[in-house]
């Protein structure tokens, strides 16, 4: 615990000295960080050689590295609600939040088809925070997607995504805060587990269905 505190205390100092010395390099780093990772994700999604499950696994693996999911969970509850959760509950909440987010993302993968992404120059928001605007362009529409990036423990991490002005952390946060007005933390966790576990279950069922079909096709081929 003590070590953690020292790290936390040292962090702003460290980050401060780094960013003050080379502000332009950070902008370039953020840009490279977002651009390479998002390009990778798009390449995987468009790679027809991989089957759907492989694509999902690969994309989620990248997501685990580039997103600070526990931080997002914490921020979504905010100063007001986070302290209401006991230690064990916090862990459970974080897990559920991550599951929900992943399931929601996987669910939207199918909506990505012919999109290309334009990357703009990141804007510095504070010593450690940047906003990187991107434009997702498809044949008949374009929408703005902002990746919010922070440097923590020497690594760049995405802590929020804004799609046409709608922030993920803020939207989820508003939902939790609304629910907690009339319900307990335990009830929220219960509701979340029912909701988010329903999704992977549906995904699993779908995957099983596809596998079954493939097996049947193979049988027929034989």
């Amino acid at each position, binding site marked *: 615990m003590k070590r953690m505190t020292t790290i*936390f205390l040292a*962090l*702003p100092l460290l980050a401060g000295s780094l960013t003050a010395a080379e502000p332009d390099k950070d902008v370039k780093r953020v840009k490279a960080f977002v651009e390479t990772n998002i390009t990778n994700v798009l390449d995987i999604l468009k790679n027809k050689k991989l089957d759907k499950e492989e694509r999902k696994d690969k994309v989620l693996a990248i997501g685990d590295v580039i997103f600070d999911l526990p*931080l997002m969970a*914490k*921020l*979504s509850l*905010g*100063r*007001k609600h*986070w*302290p*209401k959760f006991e230690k064990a509950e916090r862990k459970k909440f974080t897990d559920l939040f991550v599951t*929900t987010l992943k*399931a*929601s993302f996987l*669910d*939207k993968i*199918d*909506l990505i088809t012919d999109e290309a992404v334009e990357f703009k120059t990141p804007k510095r*928001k*504070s010593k*450690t*925070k940047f906003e990187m605007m991107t434009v997702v362009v498809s*044949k*008949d529409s*374009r929408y703005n997607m902002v990746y*919010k990036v*922070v440097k923590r423990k020497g690594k760049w991490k995405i*802590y*929020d995504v*804004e799609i*046409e*002005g*709608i*922030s993920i*952390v*803020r*939207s*989820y*946060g*508003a*939902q*939790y*805060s*609304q*629910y907690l007005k009339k319900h307990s933390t335990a009830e929220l966790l219960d*509701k*979340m587990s029912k*909701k988010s576990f329903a*999704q992977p279950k549906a995904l699993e069922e779908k995957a099983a269905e596809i596998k079954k079909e493939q097996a049947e096709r193979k049988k027929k081929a034989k």
Partner: protein
Amino acid sequence: MRIFILALLFVAAYSPSMPVLAAEAAAAAADDDFSDFDDEFGEEAMQAAGTSKVFDPLRGYNRAMFHFNDKFYFWFAKPLARGYNFIVPKPARKSVNMAFHNLRFPIRFVGSLFQLKFKRVGVETGRFLVNSTIGIGGLFDPAKRWLKWERPGDEDLGQVLAHYGVGDGFPIVLPFLGPSNLRDGLSIVPAIFLNPVIYVADTPTSLAVTTGEQFNFISLHLGEYESMKKDALDPYTFMRDAYKQNREKRIRE
């Protein structure tokens, strides 16, 4: 003094979590994780974004109308759109969508002009002229393809009112059209007169054309509402807050 201590003990005995909670709250206040992000997710920021404490006096009606729209979508619009998708290929539907968008030029023109966004006025006018002629009534987008005139964000009359300081009032769910607010909902009325269709066709035909426009749009966005609904603990508030955040962003632009 003694009474005070006794009282404290009493409180501590009956709600053992109280001091713990206070300590936790203090820890959270000093928590860097939060102070680093207060400008975005702190109480003030959430209020500004309209995601905490929403003034929603019509919430009873709104929820009922939201429910109605939801059922209308799943029982009627979606099955119909699926059939339509099966018959009409996607590129054709996209072209139709673009043509309708082109036809809606007057509202974007007036919206940009009244907000004194002259660059947008220019881009919109140029795009309209090129796409209406060479792009065959807007079915294609040569302005973007050859001249690199990208479509700017759509301006409308609600944004004009906001530009001159009119607040959004409160949320209203419109029948068939979905989440809106008092300001944006009222601005639909003058917007009708900026739709060129009403000047060339009688009222039933205009209505049919507008319905077709919305229907074609839905056919291109099947699955998005479903996916959003799955994410939400409470779909009504989720949509309401998302609408507000999106409008705020478009007004800022």
